[in-house]
């Protein structure tokens, strides 16, 4: 067996094993499903109630992706501004740090006040959650671009925009993707927070209702969905990252594809 395959099989076994252990411990100590349902119970609920669950799941995915998309757009633009202008850096950085220190639960009521309950506050919460890491990383990437690389462009009399496009942005991609993995998971958190507080749709709302009726397996089914959605998005971004920024880790795959 190749070392790479071996590593993968081993890690898959360990992950699966932790669920088996959970199952076994619950069975051994006779833990009530009201306290901690077994994974099989959660998955059974997931499958049996799927028709009722999937509209909620779809709503959460939709909200998160739109929020993340907006977050990326605003984050990249703001990061570019902060990374290339000293004044913007001095002004925006303290504000960003202050803003991101605010618990996002606290702003959901304000958003509901402005936009009404439902999808819009959830999208905005997801966006607000994921903007900060993207801004910080894009700005750092731009600010740390090697001056020598910029000199190459300057002797060619390149415009500021050409330097940004040909040097700054590609140079920033590894930073951007690193932040994207964090941002993607944060976007789910944002969505679910908003759904829990003020929505009648989405996984957050589903879990809210389920817990108020003591349907703990359904709560866990919701958690499972969220976790797997997060992992899926992470994998997608990792795959894109490997294709786009393989140069940063000097991967041979990248060299042969590119």
């Amino acid at each position, binding site marked *: 067996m190749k070392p790479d395959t071996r590593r993968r099989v081993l890690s898959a076994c360990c992950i699966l094993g932790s669920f088996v252990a959970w199952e076994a411990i619950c069975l051994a100590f006779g833990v009530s499903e009201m306290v901690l349902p077994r994974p099989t119970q959660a998955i059974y609920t997931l499958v049996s109630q799927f028709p009722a669950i999937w509209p909620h799941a779809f709503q959460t995915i939709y909200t998160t992706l739109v929020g993340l998309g907006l977050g990326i757009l605003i984050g990249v633009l703001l990061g570019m501004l902060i990374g290339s202008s000293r004044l913007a850096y001095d002004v925006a950085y303290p504000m960003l740090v202050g803003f991101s220190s605010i618990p996002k639960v606290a702003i959901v009521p304000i958003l509901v006040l402005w936009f009404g309950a439902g999808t819009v506050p959830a999208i905005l919460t997801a966006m607000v959650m994921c903007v900060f890491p993207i801004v910080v990383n894009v700005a750092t990437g731009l600010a740390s671009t*090697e001056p*020598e*690389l910029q*000199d*190459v*462009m*300057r*002797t*060619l*009399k*390149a415009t500021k925009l*050409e330097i940004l496009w*040909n*040097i700054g942005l*590609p*140079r920033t*991609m590894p930073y951007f993707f690193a932040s994207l993995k964090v941002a993607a998971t944060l976007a789910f958190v944002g969505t679910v927070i908003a759904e829990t507080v003020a929505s009648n749709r989405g996984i957050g709302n589903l879990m809210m209702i389920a817990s108020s009726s003591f349907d703990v397996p359904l709560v866990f089914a919701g958690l499972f969905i969220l976790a797997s959605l997060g992992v899926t998005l992470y994998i997608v971004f990792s795959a894109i990252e490997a294709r786009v*920024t393989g*140069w*940063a880790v*000097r991967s041979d795959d*990248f*060299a042969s594809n*590119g």
Partner: protein
Amino acid sequence: MNQALATGVVPRNPVIDLERVNVTFGGEKNKTVALAETSLRIEKGEFVALVGPSGCGKSTILKLVAGTLSPSEGNIFVTGREIGANEVRIGMAFQNPTLLPWLNIRDNVMMPLKIVPPYKHGYTKKKNGEYRERAEALLAKVGLSGFGEKFPWQLSGGMQQRASLCRALIHDPTLLLLDEPFGALDQFTREELWEIMQNLWIEKKPTVLLVTHDLKEAAYLASRICVMQARPGRIIEDSTVPFSRPRTIDVSFEPDFVSLTQRLRERIVAARAVKEQQP
């Protein structure tokens, strides 16, 4: 100018003309004079080497000509026009290869074509045809054919530096600025690259300004050597190199060559000694 007339060369507009240029760094209290009252004219097609100890302002001159630094006093004309206001095509190679790690070698070499007019117009149309062939042809000349698809980190330092020379030359610059491009290489690679550089120059005849601290390199490559002195930086000697081209490494062992480098070396050492005695 008289010298030019005497040797029968028709005086032309110099490609580079520095007129009594001063460059100072720092404020009133701790003022550093990087370049003092320096005048330098370089005619079209000349290969001029600036040599001198570190801190003598040779890189400062290069930056002035490249337009990345402004003089404190004096005028700089490139192809007869004030710096910044002209369309002269400049190619530059640095001590480090400074290739972009996310582009393969060919795309790195093609980068100037994407930026510099008139090539930039029609870049998207020609990048897979004409420009690509142009890059490959140039890479072949420096012994890098077949490496276009490779990425910078897959190449040795010498190969990266060759690619960097190609990038400096791809857009047929009228002015080529070389900032110690062979300084970080081992002896054998360096001599190999001297030969490549000389061939490229003979073929395209760009005006070259080479900054180096290697006297042998200067004497091998240049048609004129300007010796510089440190603190304050100024040109203390300007001599032509008489050897016929193409020069080979064997030339560097001939008595004339050795005595030239020896004389330049003594000149630099003497200038330094005088400096040491001053407070």
